[in-house]
């Protein structure tokens, strides 16, 4: 299974019926493709819609209905238009149940850095600082390493997105949970060993006696694709 598909499938298992969810651009967006059948999850796009749906076929889009990346999207029956202030009021006020974001770095404190690489990449934080500071549950979905270097560090070296501790980190190797005591290894990917995760991680991990294997299989993907 593709690493990114694995990550998206595992994140999809965190979704609960009735939840309001914001998916970041890129890998997080693909989580929507792997939701369990029958799960009633509502998507918010911070540019102004609650109840976002996949884009309809070309020729049936509206240029005034887009996602936060500027791409055409659809709306479920019973969607709601909101302005930027209300959109972030929902995010900051704890009305958003889950946000899934990509990451450049995460550390032992559960701090996320994902908005800038000073001197190289200065896109701006957009809604990321609000999402991480305000959502009820923050899930970081990212690859474990970049260019051979661990992205899970003792301390972030890049400017932080927020000092709010994220709730879960999902990579192609492991599921990690930041706690008061540090980063706990909750799950390993199918076919991966605890030792491999430790070796691929700069941060010190807390290893419980039993580490589960991610309950993700190709079968899930098939079911969701029906």
């Amino acid at each position, binding site marked *: 299974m593709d690493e990114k598909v694995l990550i998206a499938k595992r994140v999809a298992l965190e979704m609960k019926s009735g939840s309001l969810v914001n998916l970041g651009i890129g890998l997080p967006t693909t989580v929507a493709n792997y939701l369990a059948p029958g799960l009633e999850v509502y998507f918010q796009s911070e*540019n102004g819609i609650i109840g976002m749906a996949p884009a309809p076929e070309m020729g049936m889009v509206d240029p005034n209905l887009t996602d936060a990346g500027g791409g055409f999207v659809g709306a479920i029956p019973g969607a709601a238009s909101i302005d930027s202030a209300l959109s972030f009021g929902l995010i900051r006020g704890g009305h958003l149940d889950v946000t899934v974001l990509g990451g450049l770095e995460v550390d032992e404190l559960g701090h996320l850095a994902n908005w800038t690489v000073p001197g190289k990449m*200065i896109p701006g934080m957009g809604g990321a600082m609000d999402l991480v500071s305000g959502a009820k549950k923050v899930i970081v979905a990212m690859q474990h390493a970049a260019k051979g270097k661990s992205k899970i560090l003792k301390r972030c070296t890049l400017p932080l997105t927020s000092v709010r501790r994220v709730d879960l980190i999902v990579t192609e190797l492991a599921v990690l949970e930041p706690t008061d005591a540090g980063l706990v290894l909750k799950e390993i990917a199918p076919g991966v060993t605890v030792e491999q995760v430790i070796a691929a991680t700069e941060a010190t991990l807390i290893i419980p006696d039993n580490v589960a294997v991610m309950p993700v299989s190709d079968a899930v993907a098939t079911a969701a694709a029906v």
Partner: protein
Amino acid sequence: MNKATNCTKAIEMIPDGATLMIGGFLGVGSPHRAIDELVRQGKKNLTIIANDTGRPALGIGKLIVAKQVKKVIASHIGTNPETQKQMIAGELEVILTPQGTLAEQIRSGGFGLGGVLTATGIGTTVADGKQVVEINGKPYLVELPLRADFAILAAHRSDYRGNLEYALTARNFNEVMALAADHVIVEPDHIVPVGVIPPDAVVTPFCCVDYIIERSN
């Protein structure tokens, strides 16, 4: 009171060096004809307050490419490499602000607040130089109001008195900006007779709007 005017005249009111709020999110809900006219009239040294700087050939991006802007306050400039290039070259000042904070700052400016207290940005570079207030033992940044000389907005429908309706995600920052500028210029898709938009459908009430750009120029 008929607030309709043509695009050329509306934009002629704006002096060089003005601070402008411009609605839109990556060009969706931006006043495109007004932006084109700002380019055509060659306004200079503008300060732009907006969610983003569009793309090089889209929306606010056109003003950046034409080097008409000296300062930008925005949440995101990643879709316009020209903004980053001018910023790194020191030709353009850019203040990056969390999107929700930007919305609240603009709202504060329009609603007469001295600012708002927000947790977003605490412990990050966004907090640099900002006042921190402790509320129930938790730190909050004091984020100050933003106002502009002109707000240039897009709307779906306006009546001739200036009541506005927006369409879907084209609403974005237009709604809060409508209160936060000394002069408010709106570019609607349609202008309808007064009374056609029912009171409960009005999102921005007419008292916020000064000029409505007609379709034909």
